[in-house]
């Protein structure tokens, strides 16, 4: 437990980076990574929920009886998801439409509940904040990486700008469901190869 706040933050970026190291939260990972824009949007929304939920859970962990803690955590998470949902509807309507039901589904993203249960309920406020922020940023980075690969190959664009020029024939398999599964599987394999060294 002698980890510094910096270490708590950094571990979310490589050691425990979701969804590669912690194989949790695969559904939004596969569903929203058709374009980089959606990937970053989803990552930021999840980060916000993670940080806020971790903060509140670590503050309240002394008060919540341990028998009903999961239900309490879920309510806390659901509250912040509703906040994100309403904010996105007001300020980023296009993104809200693109992400569709995956915004309310952040509630059942195992990463958020997992961090609340495994970390925030046992640690103090500041480390919990760092942990939430680290895991959130890690998740955003992974989503960006996956969506960059898929958008590049599937559409020939990156953030809407053409990468390969007009002669490129889009590899539309990558933006479909099978491409998502295979792309994530192969990226996981690359992570394993790098991790072994």
């Amino acid at each position, binding site marked *: 437990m002698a980890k510094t706040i910096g270490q708590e933050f950094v571990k979310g970026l490589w050691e425990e980076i979701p969804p590669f190291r912690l194989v949790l939260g695969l559904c939004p990972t*596969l569903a929203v990574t058709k374009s980089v824009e959606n990937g970053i949007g989803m990552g930021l929304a999840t980060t916000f929920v993670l940080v806020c939920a971790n903060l509140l859970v670590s503050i309240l962990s002394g008060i919540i009886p341990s028998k009903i803690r*999961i239900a309490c955590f879920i309510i806390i998470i*659901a*509250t912040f998801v509703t906040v994100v949902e309403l904010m996105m509807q007001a300020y980023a309507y296009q993104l809200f439409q693109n992400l569709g039901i995956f915004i309310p589904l952040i509630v059942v993203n195992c990463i958020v509940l997992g961090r609340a249960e495994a970390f925030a309920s046992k640690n103090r406020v500041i480390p919990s904040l760092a942990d939430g922020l680290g895991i959130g940023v890690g998740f955003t980075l992974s989503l960006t990486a996956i969506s960059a690969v898929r958008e590049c190959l599937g559409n020939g664009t990156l953030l809407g700008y053409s990468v390969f020029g007009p002669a490129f024939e889009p590899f539309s398999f990558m933006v479909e469901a099978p491409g998502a599964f295979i792309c994530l599987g192969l990226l996981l394999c690359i992570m394993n190869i790098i991790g*072994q060294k």
Partner: protein
Amino acid sequence: MGDYMVLIISSMLINNITLAQYLGICPFIGTSKKMETATGMAGAVVFVMTLAAIITWCIDTYFLKTLDIEYLRTIAFILVIASLVQFVEMFLKKSIPALYAGLGIFLPLITTNCAVMGVCLINIQEEYKFLEALTASISYALGFGLALILFAGVRERVILGRVPKPLQDTSIGLVTAGMLALAFIGFRGLV
């Protein structure tokens, strides 16, 4: 009647909840290593998903919409699903012990299965009527079960093969799921 057939086929095969809509991937990968656990999970999901979809549909239509508090939908739904799972677990333990022994450990896992919540939200989003919502949820649940059992069958074979070390476990699992999803794309010609 024809409309319902189309609805059944499109929810079960064409828009398969896991392989086309990316919902419920965690249990799909997690419980598919053995055929036994896969069938157990499939049964539990069919049971809970149908019940949850009906109850959340009623709550949304008769309660949230009439009182004009639709922004509470996310919180209301997750609470309903969590308590429903708990309730079903207690009920089965008491009155149908044989079924409880079969589904047992998979029931609590369903609370965080996003496919259940996803189907509830899809029913609302598509503005299905009661009977349509019922048909769609049963078909979605059966589609999930079908995909899971097929996938478990394939995975039991893959384990026997010589998989390169970095690709092992989840990684090859995802690639296999990709192949299965490719096969399901073939159903698009049906309707």
